[in-house]
């Protein structure tokens, strides 16, 4: 590995020569704002928010697409840089609905965060704003072109990572939107509803259709493992008032921030009214709620009876590929150590 020495914001650092200025800055905790960067994707260079000043070059340079060089002197927060970022944000706000009060994305919106950080406000103007175009044909999420900043993350995640290619930029220039073929809507496209586009959208342009209303600052995040297949994707469950209200992918070695439709959107079963809430005993063909103590008592009665009359091998247990390791372990231990039988199996074969 070749390394180079450079200075960023008066900090001398030594980094791998293959890094970009943005990566180098990041590696020493200097955050550079950006709206279109994702380390999993090729550099896109569209948002221009990551501009920095590099001594020796007249123009501002985008730090995402500039490789580090030996002796480089980089400034990430000069007046010129900040002014440029403010103008970019101003241009975005000029073409963005002023509805942060009620926008679901509020609090989790990069545009909002940067507008706040750089102190840029909405202003009145008589110019054109993007035409209204909403695609709400997908059961899980909705696209609102007016909130879209065309960072292209959704398009690139769909085509490069999910490799479905259901959406793309449509039209050109100011009229560009993110769309499906012939604007027939996501539901009529190749879209597989994985929601990976939703997960990367920095603004409220691609939003899940939530059953619950919640503000991002109200939710807690708990990292866990998805339950829908053997891939074991890592997810954060978003909870509010003891309810799961959303799921976001975790970028790690297993799923690299990707999910499928089930992992991303099928969480409503957790709080579903059909859930079993108490032990049920069938008496005369009808199920009645009983207490746990009663349930254990019945089990003990039955076990004692069959053990005495029929011996250990009259017991059998089906364990579950959906339960945890600890539970599977205990289940087989129950049969082997307590009921003294090896009649234990699970559904690995189905």
């Amino acid at each position, binding site marked *: 590995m070749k390394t180079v020495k450079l200075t960023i914001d008066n900090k001398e650092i030594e980094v791998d020569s293959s890094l970009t200025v943005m990566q180098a800055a990041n590696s020493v905790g200097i955050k550079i704002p950006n709206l279109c960067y994702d380390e999993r994707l090729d550099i896109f260079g569209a948002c221009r928010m990551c501009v920095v000043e590099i001594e020796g070059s007249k123009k501002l340079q985008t730090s995402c697409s500039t490789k580090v060089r030996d002796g480089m002197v980089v400034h990430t927060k000069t007046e010129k840089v900040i002014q440029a970022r403010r103008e970019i944000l101003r241009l975005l706000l000029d073409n963005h609905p002023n509805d942060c009060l009620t926008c679901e994305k509020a609090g989790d919106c990069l545009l909002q965060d940067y507008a706040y950080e750089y102190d840029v406000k909405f202003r009145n103007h008589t110019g054109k704003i993007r035409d209204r175009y909403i695609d709400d044909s997908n059961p899980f999420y909705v696209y609102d072109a007016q909130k879209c900043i065309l960072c292209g993350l959704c398009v690139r995640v769909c*085509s490069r990572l999910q490799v*479905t*290619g*259901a*959406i*793309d*930029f*449509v*039209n*050109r220039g100011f009229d560009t939107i993110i*769309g*499906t*073929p*012939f604007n027939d809507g996501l539901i009529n*496209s*190749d879209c597989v509803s994985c929601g990976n586009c939703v997960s990367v959208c920095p603004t409220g342009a691609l939003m899940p259709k939530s059953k619950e209303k919640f503000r991002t600052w109200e939710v807690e995040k708990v990292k866990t493992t998805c339950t829908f297949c053997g891939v074991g994707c890592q997810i954060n469950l978003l909870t509010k008032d003891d309810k799961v209200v959303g799921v976001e992918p975790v970028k790690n070695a297993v799923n690299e921030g990707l999910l499928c439709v089930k992992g991303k959107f099928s969480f409503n079963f957790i709080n579903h009214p059909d859930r079993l809430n108490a032990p049920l005993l069938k008496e005369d063909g009808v199920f009645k709620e009983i207490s746990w103590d009663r349930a254990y008592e019945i089990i003990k009665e039955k076990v004692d009876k069959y053990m005495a009359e029929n011996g250990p091998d009259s017991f059998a247990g089906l364990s579950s590929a959906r339960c945890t390791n600890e539970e599977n372990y205990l289940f087989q231990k129950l049969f082997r150590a307590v009921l003294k039988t090896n009649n234990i199996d699970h559904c690995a074969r189905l």
Partner: protein
Amino acid sequence: MEYTFDLEKNKDKLTEYKDFLKMIKATNGALMPALQKAQELFNYLPKEVLKIVSEELRIPLAEIYGVATFYAQFSFIPKGENQISVCLGTACYVKGAQAILEEFEKELGIKQGETTSDLKFSINEARCLGDCSKAPVVMINSTLFPLVKKKDVKKILEDLR
């Protein structure tokens, strides 16, 4: 105006087109030639045809649509028999091309980018046809009309009708 693509009527063209696709499918970057050929054959890019392109070239339909909407020469409604391109390049512009475009629009009752309902004419503005010394110029199909004046428009159209 809605146009439906008549599969029966276009059967021969479709066969020709599919043969063309087979021929180019192995070349790198086949999409642009594929779209250009479709535009040439069908006078526009019908959805049905783009789906064939998607299958043959293994390119997602969304990507094809994205490309097709990027380039000004592709259209999603049929172009007229006579495609009128009014040059609005700088030389033509400073010599009054805008008024000529408006005259065509007035005479045909359509806006630029549109096609008359009898599919006879469509108007497009062009970005410099490269005949600046003869400005203002108009190109109809592949015929160039140099030094066009507003009052010539009627006559030009009459000759084509």
